């Protein structure tokens, strides 16, 4: 009975899974305008390319009146932090002594030497007792001295006040604190959060609230060149660990008031800041909502880095393929934000995550858009080729050499056979040996201290390969196979994807050893099924190829920038159009120009003079 149960469970279909699934569906506007579009066909764009699946053609770039819930406004509801201490839920008392006691209790005061409590007296008439709390090392002490202590202690006397009042907070906040980010707090919980993030919180006698002033000042790495995603042409900046630097790097590229940054906190113990960035008038609100739902729905005590958060929020954690794009390049993030993706930035991580991450995103490099069109096409072809080489080349070699010898040219076969003459192992052992030693070289190359790095490369590549051949442990052809496979795996621009593909090749090697080409083809079939089954944040993993959507101008072939009129269809963006069909207005004659912009006049004249049509 048990067996029957299991067999039916494995092979039978027991309906769709009962977990909560998220699908990124088309927006109402898009559907509406799609149906409208079917009726009236007056847009001039239909001549340019045949859209197999009819999609709305929106011309307006901005001006979306989201009378529904604008995703930017819903950031207040993250207050349901689980309580660590009872004190933290308490409200701030009017009595200064009680507050101080609470603070000391909350921060384990005598024990924790990093928290500084400074008592002071406001030079008002009569003097008001106060104290401020800040975290040594997180706050800039010079800033505290100059812009908090100095005005409060010395300058408050310029403005004689009536003494202890409940509205001291507001008063100080408005009149006496020359700090640009100031907040009024009433809960101890917020006090703790603020102090931990580097702010200075000031309590006043007789006031049931506290004032927090922004005094962040901690050491962090300066913006540096990107280390893992290098380009030849294009911006060289990479993200750093500091969250604020990272958001500013993105904001520097997208100067739009619609670029929203929301903050969430994950990790009950480390309270790590997570920023979500998206374009409010572009990104599908459902996607933003889903990202926030997943991040808020994490119950853990420590989220150190974006990789940890990735595991918590991705759809298929056990898959070999990544479903979230991680990048350290601000330009890539901003270009993907403009495609309608959502960026997730975790504090203390120089890598920004972008969702949804689809297979083709992992084959793209920001450089594709910076080099000329023809070059980028070639780059992409090489990369797709590299993916197949990475997965299949060793398996192909094994299959051909042990099952399908008739496929090899006679001379090559004879040279393989003669090279293997004194090799004591079967091909599979040979290839596993070399693949494993390649992985060893790779892993050791990452861990090895920088100075020894080049030495290791030489040892790994030259000596190991050469010696292995000379010692007749492997055949020389195999070295070529392993080297080409290794090279092509590094031609895949995304680190996680290249790792996934590289790992897959071992499965294929085993399949090829046991079943030859039949094994490889069945392996490819299973791989395809698994990939087709995947979704990343509600978007099918192989979109826009497997669920065929409206043709994209940037899948394997990148169209020239002036032909990339629409955004990826599968992102279900609120604004589907990047540019009108006629994006290079200067190429047309003045009369054919749809809207006669006055600033274009000069340029057009010049074009006509030069005989351009």
């Amino acid at each position, binding site marked *: 009975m048990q067996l029957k149960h299991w067999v039916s469970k*494995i092979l039978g279909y027991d309906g769709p899974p009962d*977990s909560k699934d998220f699908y990124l569906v088309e927006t109402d506007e898009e559907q509406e305008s799609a149906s409208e579009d079917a009726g009236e066909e007056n847009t001039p764009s239909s001549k340019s390319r045949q859209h197999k699946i009819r999609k709305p053609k929106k011309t307006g770039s901005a001006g979306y009146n989201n009378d529904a819930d604008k995703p930017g406004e819903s950031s207040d509801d993250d207050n349901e932090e689980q309580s660590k201490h009872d004190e933290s839920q308490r409200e701030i008392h009017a009595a200064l002594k009680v507050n101080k006691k609470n603070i000391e209790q909350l921060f384990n005061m005598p024990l924790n030497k990093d928290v500084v409590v400074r008592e002071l007296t406001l030079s008002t008439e009569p003097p008001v007792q106060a104290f401020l709390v800040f975290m040594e090392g997180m706050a800039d002490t010079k800033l505290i001295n100059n812009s908090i202590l100095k005005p409060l202690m010395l300058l408050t006397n310029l403005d004689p006040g009536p003494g202890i009042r409940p509205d001291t907070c507001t008063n100080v906040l408005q009149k006496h604190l020359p700090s640009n980010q100031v907040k009024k707090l009433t809960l101890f919980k917020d006090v703790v959060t603020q102090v931990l993030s580097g702010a200075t919180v000031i309590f006043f006698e007789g006031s049931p609230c506290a004032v927090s002033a922004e005094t962040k000042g901690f050491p962090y790495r300066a913006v540096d060149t990107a280390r893992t995603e290098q380009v030849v042409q294009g911006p060289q900046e990479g993200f750093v660990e500091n969250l604020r630097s990272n958001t500013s790097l993105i904001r520097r590229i997208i100067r739009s008031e619609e670029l929203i940054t929301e903050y969430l906190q994950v990790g009950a113990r480390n309270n790590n800041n997570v920023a979500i960035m998206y374009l409010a008038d572009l990104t599908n609100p459902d996607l933003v909502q889903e990202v926030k739902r997943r991040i808020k729905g994490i119950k853990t005590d420590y989220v150190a880095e974006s990789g940890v958060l990735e595991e918590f929020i991705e759809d298929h954690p056990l898959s070999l393929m990544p479903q979230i794009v991680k990048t350290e390049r601000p330009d890539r993030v901003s270009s993907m934000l403009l495609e309608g993706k959502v960026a997730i930035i975790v504090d203390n991580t120089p890598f920004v995550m972008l969702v949804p991450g689809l297979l083709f995103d992992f084959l793209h490099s920001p450089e594709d858009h910076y080099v000329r069109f023809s070059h980028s096409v070639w780059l992409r072809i090489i990369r797709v080729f590299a993916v197949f080489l990475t997965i299949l080349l060793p398996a192909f070699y094994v299959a051909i050499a042990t099952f399908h*010898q008739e496929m090899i040219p006679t001379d090559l076969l004879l040279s393989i056979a003669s090279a293997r003459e004194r090799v004591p192992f079967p091909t599979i052992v040979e290839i596993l040996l070399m693949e494993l030693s390649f992985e060893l070289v790779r892993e050791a190359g990452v861990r090895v201290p920088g100075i020894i790095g080049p030495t290791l490369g030489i040892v790994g590549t030259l000596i190991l390969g050469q010696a292995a051949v000379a010692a007749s442990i492997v055949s020389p052809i195999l070295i070529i196979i392993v080297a080409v496979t290794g090279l092509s795996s590094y031609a895949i621009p995304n680190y996680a994807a290249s790792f996934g593909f590289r790992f897959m090749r071992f499965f294929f090697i085993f399949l090829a050893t046991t079943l030859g080409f039949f094994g490889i083809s069945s392996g490819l079939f299973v791989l395809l099924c698994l990939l087709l089954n995947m979704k990343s944040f509600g978007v099918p993993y192989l979109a826009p190829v497997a669920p065929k959507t409206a043709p994209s101008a940037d899948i394997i072939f990148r169209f020239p920038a002036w032909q990339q009129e629409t955004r990826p269809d599968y992102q279900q963006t609120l604004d589907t159009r990047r540019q009108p069909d006629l994006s290079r207005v200067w190429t047309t004659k003045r009369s054919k120009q749809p809207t006669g912009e006055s600033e274009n006049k000069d340029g057009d004249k010049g074009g006509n003079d030069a005989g351009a049509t």
Partner: protein
Amino acid sequence: MRRGSRHHLVAALLVMLMLLFTAGCGSNYEPDELSYVLLMGIDHGAQNRLRISYLIAVPKAISGPGQGGGGGGGGQQSASVVTIESPSIYASMNMVNSFVGRKISLMHNKGIIFSEAMAKDGSMGVIVPGLTQFRETRGTAFIAVSRQKPEEILAKMKPLLETNPAKYFELLAGNQSFTGYIPSEKLQDFYNDLKAGGINPVSILVAESDEKLPPHSGHNTYRTEGDYVAGELVKKGGVSLEAMGAAVFREGKMVGILNGNETSIYSMFRGQYKRRIYTVKDPLKHGKDIVIMEVNQKTKPRIKVFLTEDGVVVETRLYLEGNVLGVNSLIDYGLPRYRPALEKAFEELIEQEAMKLVEKTQHEYRSDILGFGNKARHLVLTQKDLEQLNWPALYENAQVSVKVDFKIRRTGTLLRLMPIAKSSSDNMQ
């Protein structure tokens, strides 16, 4: 992880595991566990039914250790001939493995050479279908009939330039594309022609060379380059082996041979002719003067078959074009007034040769190797009707007409061909 996808994953893994266990690795051989037969010779046995010879590659000698220096394989034989008598070909493979360590594999067998005796008594026609059936044999292996014993031919396979005899034989057979002296008949073509009613197969003819140069007698005669068959070439050096001409079959039995010229014409009719150099007598200056031309086929021939009361009428048209390579008489055939004469003369020459070949196949060999029967299929509706038509008998009495279209395209790199400057009277002509 969702429950559903976990089950799918488990199911996928199980399916993959099941595949591994059920299939096993039965046909898995390391490349150095096999001995690769490069050429095969088949002959009648003295004691058993067949005498099979295998030319087995010695990989070490053919592509020795790459970094071992240039002359590594010099001393070693690149392939060796193994001959065994056995009741069948496949049994002979097993029998060879009683003294050859590595499993015999026909996967890289590039040529099958039958003895003339086997071809003539029809045993070859019986063996070829079985060979085609076998999984390991290549359909693209060349098929040849040798005038000597196949094992002797195989033993002669010591190529001058190549270390690999298979490559040598492949290139040799591939030379058809620019010599035209041999047919381009592979195992699969031979089998197809064998089983089809409308055509009879041919095969390459190979023979051992005489390797003797006759002494000079002071005068020689003009003999066209294709007027030889294998074994008759006057040559010395290189491999003492020749492939020239073709063996003609009827109903699986060899009935005769074609020389190089006839084979070229045969290829023209089949549309397999690519290029060849023709040395023809100068049409405008009779005597010893010759014109050398490279002739290639412009388009496939047009062959039309009609059925009349008097029998079958076959109308054929061959389209050729050529480049003049050299003219002995120094007549400038690039000039419009001379060119048509050469074109016409060559057309007549090929027409004559073609008619001779057709008559030979009709009356002497009684075998339609030119494939006119395949073109006659449109005369009937069903296969049964075709069989009733009795094409072989019809072909013998068919009226065949040959028309050749020949155009000279280029006459070389000289703008004008000038006569040799002479001071006194010439004695060249």
